[in-house]
């Protein structure tokens, strides 16, 4: 029996030994009687002697072994006697040990009766009136609150700490260097995928995949590196018969080497927006004025109008057509003032740029006629006639390839003044800026006589070139300097007329030049070609085109510069005229600014031909175009 049960045992001994000697010492520690032979006194006052305890350990052990009631024997501390517990007592001990109530019949879970409930009873348990204390505020509490308020006022305690708004977590990788080892893992390079097995890898491949004897021999003789297949396709009766793959380890090793030696460096591609690469061009709206709408149509020709030219005053327009007529128009009203018939389809017309001479050069077949239209100042017209008639034959007659003749009779009435018979068909006529020299082009491949220059005042003809390379397409005088431009199929050659040498050769980069125009400043040239290109040359810059424009859908027939405004135009077989802004700066460092500003449509396409000639008005930003539909149109 343990010590914890000691008090219990005391209780039990009373009940057990009621009939026995009763110790009267009371509830005292029994150690006090430890050194005495007695243990206390009975009711009669006689000493109760301690029972003789001579049992040693061995006896104790034997007793434990032999006595069946040993486990229920306890020693009474009051008397020192051994007591054997009865069954009921053992039961009680067990119950208590289990934490149960001692009495078997006691119900721990009886229903509770709530005496002090919210319900007002008729007969309350207590009828005591409520304390005064419960009505008046507590002085102690007031003192405590006052202290707190004072502490808050003095700032000793903070009433309420503001809540932390910043999140409590942080970005672990925020400051990570992408080039560090961890960062590099982001640049994951996936392993190259293995090729999927094909039919030839099958254990039972179709017969066409099986190699024939020769193929097999060839395969064996081939170097393993160059073999198309690294194995021989084989046929087995069933899957069970397929042996283990002998090169398995080898192949896995190769694969591992591939993965291990794969270059992990990633090529960084620079992302450039293609829009950013295009240079910023000004808006066409800011480049006014330029022609925008068709204003007038000059009708009258019955066939295609090959060539047009405007008088230097800008009041008259001349047009030459395939219906063998030359017509003179009033620009402002589209009135045909004069029609002159010539003996063939007119290829070119050119108004003399000198305002004090009233002459128009017209070329048809092998003839160039100088016409006096009789328009403009009467004085100028008569002066021109006098200038031509005042010519005196020189002493020695020069042997010239071109026959000069003075028109007489009906031709003179119509305005013909001089007739120049050429040996070949004349395609183009152009005047020098001073109005005395006239250049004619007679295209003939390889011939030495393709370009001639006439001097009208002396009725002299020169052949400036001993031999011509290629087929001459068109020629032009430099507006200021003594240069002469000759355009052949692929090149434009610039000759110095005084030094008589070739100064430049421009490579047009196209197949067949059709037309050419010189900028009034003289340093820029545009060339139109039959392969839909317009090439702008800057003579100071290079012999190659500064810019090539491919806006037209069909062959270009004509190009022109404006004399004052920074404009140039091109006419094409697609029936449209494209006007571009071409600003040339005096500053040598600044390149010309070229902006296409307007597509002008109006001509109908006849016989696959659209616009045949374009030319600008000398003073206004207006462009004239002549077309295969027999009309000349003015765009303003």
């Amino acid at each position: 029996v343990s010590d914890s049960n000691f008090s219990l045992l005391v209780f039990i001994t009373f009940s057990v030994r009621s009939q026995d000697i009763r110790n009267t010492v009371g509830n005292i520690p029994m150690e006090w009687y430890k050194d005495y032979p007695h243990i206390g006194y009975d009711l009669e006052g006689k000493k109760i002697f301690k029972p003789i305890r001579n049992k040693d350990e061995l006896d104790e052990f034997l007793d434990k072994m032999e006595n069946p009631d040993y486990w229920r024997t306890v020693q009474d501390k009051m008397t020192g006697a051994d007591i054997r517990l009865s069954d009921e007592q053992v039961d009680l001990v067990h119950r208590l040990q289990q934490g149960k109530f001692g009495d078997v019949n006691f119900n721990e879970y009886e229903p509770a009766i709530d005496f002090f409930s919210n319900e007002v009873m008729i007969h309350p348990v207590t009828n005591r009136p409520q304390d005064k204390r419960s009505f008046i505020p507590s002085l102690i509490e007031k003192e405590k609150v006052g202290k707190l308020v004072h502490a808050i006022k003095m700032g000793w305690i903070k009433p309420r700490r503001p809540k932390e708004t910043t999140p409590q977590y942080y970005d672990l990788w925020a400051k990570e260097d992408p080039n560090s080892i961890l960062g590099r893992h982001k640049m994951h390079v996936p392993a190259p995928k293995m090729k999927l097995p094909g039919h030839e890898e099958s254990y039972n491949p179709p017969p066409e995949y099986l190699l024939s004897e020769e193929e097999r021999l060839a395969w064996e003789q081939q170097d393993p590196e160059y073999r198309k297949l690294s194995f021989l396709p084989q046929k087995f009766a069933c899957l069970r018969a397929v042996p283990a793959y002998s090169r398995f380890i080898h192949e896995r090793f190769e694969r591992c080497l591939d993965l291990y030696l794969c270059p992990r460096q990633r090529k960084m591609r620079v992302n450039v927006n293609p829009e950013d690469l295009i240079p910023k061009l000004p808006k066409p709206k800011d480049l006014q004025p330029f022609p925008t709408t068709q204003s007038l149509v000059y009708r009258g020709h019955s066939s295609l109008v090959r060539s047009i030219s405007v008088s230097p005053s800008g009041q008259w327009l001349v047009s030459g057509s395939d219906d063998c007529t030359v017509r003179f128009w009033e620009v402002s009203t589209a009135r045909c003032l004069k029609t002159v018939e010539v003996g063939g389809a007119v290829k070119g017309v050119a108004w003399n740029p000198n305002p004090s001479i009233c002459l128009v050069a017209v070329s048809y077949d092998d003839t160039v006629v100088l016409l006096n239209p009789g328009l403009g100042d009467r004085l100028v017209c008569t002066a021109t006639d006098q200038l031509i008639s005042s010519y005196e034959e020189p002493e020695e007659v020069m042997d010239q390839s071109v026959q000069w003749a003075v028109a007489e009779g009906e031709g003179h009435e119509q305005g013909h003044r001089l007739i120049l018979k050429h040996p070949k068909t004349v395609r183009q006529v152009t005047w020098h800026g001073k109005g005395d020299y006239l250049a004619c082009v007679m295209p003939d491949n390889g011939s030495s006589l393709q370009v001639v220059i006439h001097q009208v005042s002396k009725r002299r003809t020169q052949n400036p070139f001993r031999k011509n390379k290629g087929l001459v397409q068109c020629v032009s005088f430099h507006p200021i300097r003594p240069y002469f431009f000759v355009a052949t199929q692929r090149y434009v050659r610039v000759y110095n007329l005084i030094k008589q040498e070739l100064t430049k050769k421009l490579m047009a980069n196209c197949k067949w030049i059709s037309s050419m125009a010189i900028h009034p400043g003289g340093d820029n040239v545009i060339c139109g070609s039959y392969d839909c290109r317009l090439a702008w040359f800057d003579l100071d810059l290079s012999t190659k085109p500064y810019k090539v424009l491919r806006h037209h859908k069909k062959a270009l027939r004509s190009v022109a510069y404006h004399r004052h405004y920074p404009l140039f135009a091109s006419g094409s077989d697609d029936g449209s005229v494209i006007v571009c802004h071409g600003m040339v700066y005096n500053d040598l460092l600044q390149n010309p600014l070229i902006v296409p500003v307007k597509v002008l449509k109006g001509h109908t396409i006849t016989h696959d031909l659209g616009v045949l000639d374009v030319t600008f008005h000398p003073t206004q930003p207006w462009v004239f175009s002549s077309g295969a539909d027999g009309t000349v149109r003015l765009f303003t």
Partner: protein
Amino acid sequence: MSQVQARFFTENKKYLIDDVPFSIPAASEVADLSGVINKLLEAKNDGHKHVEFDFLVRGQFLRTSLASHMEKENISTEEVVEIEYVEKFTAPQPEECIMHDDWISSVEADSEWILTGSYDKTARIWSMEGKAVMTVAGHTDVVKDVAWVKRSENLQTGSLVVNDASLLLTASLDQTIMLWEWNSERNKVEARHCCRGHAGSVDTVAVDPTRTKVCVLPTVEEDEIEEPNRPRKKQKTEQMGLTRTPLMTFSGHNEAVSSVLWMDAEELCSASWDHTIRLWDAETGEQKSTLTGSKVFNSISYSPLCRRLASGSTDRHVRLWDPRSKDGSLVLLSLTSHNGWVTAVRWSPSHEHQLVSGSLDNVVKLWDTRSCKAPLYDLAAHEDKILCVDWTENGLILSGGADNKLYTYRYSTCVSDAGA
């Protein structure tokens, strides 16, 4: 906003109504308002006949509903709106179609006769009924402009030298101006003077208000490069002699002069292809001011009634200018509706707000400056380019063009508006 308080008033005594504000629906348009006025007039006097009215809100014609017009013009709807009503300008009625042999380059008409210049090198005189009265032939090239100098009535009373004769001028491409004397009774024409001096075709002539001086202009300058163009003026004196030379030359234009006119007896105005309108002092020959545009001017017209210049240019707009503004860059209004170059403009001789314009798009338009968004009427009779227009004071609008036809239209001279 469904109702608007409006007060109607008019200058015309014939159509006066009581001066009280009316509440009218805001969505009402011109026809509704016209109905309202007619109802009021009928209630007032029994013999009233229905009249179509046009309405002006703060000097602008009402063309849409009243509400949208007020919103556009930013007029408060809270206050009483002052609405002026005038008799509606009825559409000009086509009257005659006078056929010519060739293009008509110019027309000038007075109350009795119509004078036209044609590309067949002649000028013609027509009666108002379209009957050919006289053909003036003598130029060797196209006649570009014509002008009456004196009418016979004036001469009958005033001059003893020329009895019962009219004087007229023709300018031609052959660089001359011819002064003709036409006796309407005997129907004979006689060339009196030939004026030379231009170095190019003479495109326009103008006779000054006192009818003694003539201003003529060439289109082309022929001298050295950079030499300005030369408008020239010529005085007609009583001395006899066939050829005359200019009295004064006005130099300054860089390009062809397209139109010239007299503003009053001392002031000249010329428009040119060099994008300027210049005002000249006729006495000294000095340039007074310059109005600079952005396009070539084809034609100008001046109205002494409203003291404005109207110009037709190669960009489809008719522009109004104030010639008194010194800087010259002030464009008062632009009237935009044409589709081609405006070749001719002419103010109404009797109405301060009306003008006609002819264009290369074959349409003559009648404008009122109080409604600048759209013309009053389009007169689409021509089949080809229109080259000239004119008004007469007795109710005719004339237009001639490249279809060889001279059309006349009769318009009702609005009594209420005349000289308003």
